[in-house]
């Protein structure tokens, strides 16, 4: 594998207009498509090398579907996911299944549930070594050595190789899942709620481990999570998703200090503070929008305290916020003439 050192600001991954729709079928014998769940709808972002991008949102916001579509665990409906392999770029959305397999070495996933994501009938050594076997990269003594090395890196011991997952605690199992992902020396790691299932005291250990490994292997993380305090701690930038769309993309500190989109504001205010004297906001009305039955215009407008007249008509798009690196999809930050132009265009296309 070539290990060229690219210029610092080249994106490892460029996601452009990525969409993933699931068809809604009619009931009965002749099943016809009568609609679509727009689980991921026109998502755009760049992921820089060595950076950690958080993808946050509530259930049904499309964050996991988005991550899986990028990795081609799901076939995208449309759009591009341009991935820098180190010797050229490929569009993951277009590449054939056959060409995809070698690329999978460079992008790995860590899953949420350390209990169901490890095969209970395989030893830890087999689990961690399996990717090397599948890709025919190592066997025999070399395989063993690489497994041992990886186990040490994630804070386990080589003698754990012979044991089965049930003998380990939740935190240790998550370390096994991390070892399995990193043994391929990937450049992109998608961590889907990787610390959500862990107890607080163990969660901190795994967060530290992820940070250490990132430094050591120059990893790029796409960190899918719903826990905002974890995201604040480890992410450089954060994309907030709502109903399949990114509604705000900002530097981590900027988002937490000065959230722009009303949904980001609501989400942050609902996080319970551990200081009893700082009261959280209990009064966010309504429910998360149903991606199969989106309201017209901005999907957040039925719950939004700041809605005004274009909000139920024109779909907002990510637009830079003046005087900041943040981009947000909210009419409050878009000049009226642009909204009017977009409204005419959107009305024409429907």
């Amino acid at each position, binding site marked *: 594998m070539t290990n060229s050192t690219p210029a610092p600001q080249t994106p490892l991954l460029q996601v452009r207009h990525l969409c993933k729709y699931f068809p809604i079928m009619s009931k009965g014998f002749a099943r016809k498509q009568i609609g679509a769940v727009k689980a991921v709808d026109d998502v755009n972002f760049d992921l820089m090398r060595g950076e950690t991008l958080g993808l946050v949102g*509530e*259930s049904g916001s499309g964050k996991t579907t988005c991550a899986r579509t990028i990795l081609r665990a799901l076939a995208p409906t449309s759009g591009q996911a341009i991935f820098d392999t180190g010797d050229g770029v490929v569009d993951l959305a277009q590449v054939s299944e056959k060409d995809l397999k070698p690329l999978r070495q460079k992008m790995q996933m860590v899953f949420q549930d350390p209990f169901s994501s490890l095969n209970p009938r395989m030893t830890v050594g087999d689990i961690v070594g399996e990717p090397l076997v599948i890709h025919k990269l190592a066997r025999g003594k070399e395989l063993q050595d690489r497994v041992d090395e990886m186990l040490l890196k994630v804070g386990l011991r080589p003698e754990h190789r012979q044991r089965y997952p049930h003998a380990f*605690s*939740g*935190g*240790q199992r998550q370390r096994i899942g991390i070892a399995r992902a990193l043994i391929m020396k990937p450049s992109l790691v998608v961590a889907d709620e990787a610390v959500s299932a862990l*107890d*607080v*005291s*163990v*969660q*901190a*250990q795994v*967060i*530290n481990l992820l*940070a250490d490994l990132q430094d050591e292997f120059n990893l790029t993380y796409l960190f899918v999570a*719903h826990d*905002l*305090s*974890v995201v*604040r*701690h*480890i992410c450089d930038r954060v994309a907030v998703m709502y109903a399949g769309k990114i509604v705000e993309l900002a530097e*981590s*500190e900027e988002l937490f200090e000065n959230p722009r989109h009303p949904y980001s504001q*609501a*989400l942050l205010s*609902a*996080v*319970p*503070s*551990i*200081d*009893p*004297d700082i*009261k*959280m*906001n*209990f*009064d*966010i*009305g309504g*429910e*998360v929008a149903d991606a199969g039955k989106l309201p017209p215009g901005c999907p957040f407008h039925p719950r939004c305290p700041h809605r005004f007249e274009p909000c139920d008509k024109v779909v907002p798009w990510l637009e830079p916020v003046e005087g900041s690196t943040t981009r947000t999809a909210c009419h409050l930050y878009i000049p009226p003439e642009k909204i009017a132009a977009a409204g005419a265009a959107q009305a024409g296309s429907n």
Partner: protein
Amino acid sequence: MTNDTVLQIEDLKTYFYTEQGEIPAVDGVTVSLQRGKVLALVGESGCGKSVTSYSILRLIRPPGKIVGGKILFFPSDGVEPVDIAGLDETSDALYSVRGGHISMIFQEPMTALSPVHTINNQISEAILLHQDVTPAQAREMAIEMLRKVGIPGAERRIDQYPHEMSGGMRQRVVIAMALVCNPEILIADEPTTALDVTIQGQILKLIKDLVSERGTSVVFITHDLGVVAQVADDVAVMYLGRVVEKSDVRGVLKTPLHPYTMSLLQSLPGLGHRGARLPAIRGSVPNLTDIPPGCPFHPRCPHAVRGRCDVGDRPALRTFSNGGQAACVRVEEIHPHVHEVGHSNDPRVAPATV
């Protein structure tokens, strides 16, 4: 014990008898719930918080068994207290307590509801069991209750099945079902853990309103210290089947005494600088079959001293001058500004030989 106590748990022991031997899931828990207050039981998995709450309603099934202690319930009508732990499994007294005076809401709103019965069937069942009304009256009461917990279109919703509702709505139904008999005590076992953060706020508000409007007393089980800060009046922190610290909510979260509580609070992300290493607690929670001697937290404790923390019995809860209680022999050394009150034996005189 004050006059205002509605539930007093004394030295509760609930053990499980398995092939690996006796598992002391709850091993001598003493807590009390004041009328109209929220008591939070906090801890990580395996600390016994849920087993404690299941014990209160006598929902422990074999191989589990309550092997000791009392669960005293003081009904508001002033009659004699009832020791729930001592009631006969099939007695009418237990049936009237469970679901009538004390009811419970569970973590997972999907599994707590029957998928093959309508909402009306499920709520009316509870009413008809505990109150002398006709099915038509029960239905009216159920609709009224759904309205109170904030379900829009309750007349229509009542004939729906759980799968037709969102997670937040289902949790409201579960709460409605628990409240329909107007219980004095509500046990909430991780009621918002499965919910999104904006919906969590709505459900927490509902529980807080219950307390302030109906005077319901709540035992709130959670692992989320943020939720504790927002809803609890009093807090008991549990570790490996015992209470290690007990105080009011500000005491536990702002001036914690026990090293476990202190470490837990410090290991939360989002407090320090972004990217800085989190002060994690080393190791992981030991198995209940293999509880360390002395203070069970000592292998993970940054303040543990050999010869004092790793020997003998588990340290007892002691009361300190700031009003908190903690089960740690080194509280006065770690916090020089507090001293023990109440008990005469001076713990600073450590066993010199060991």
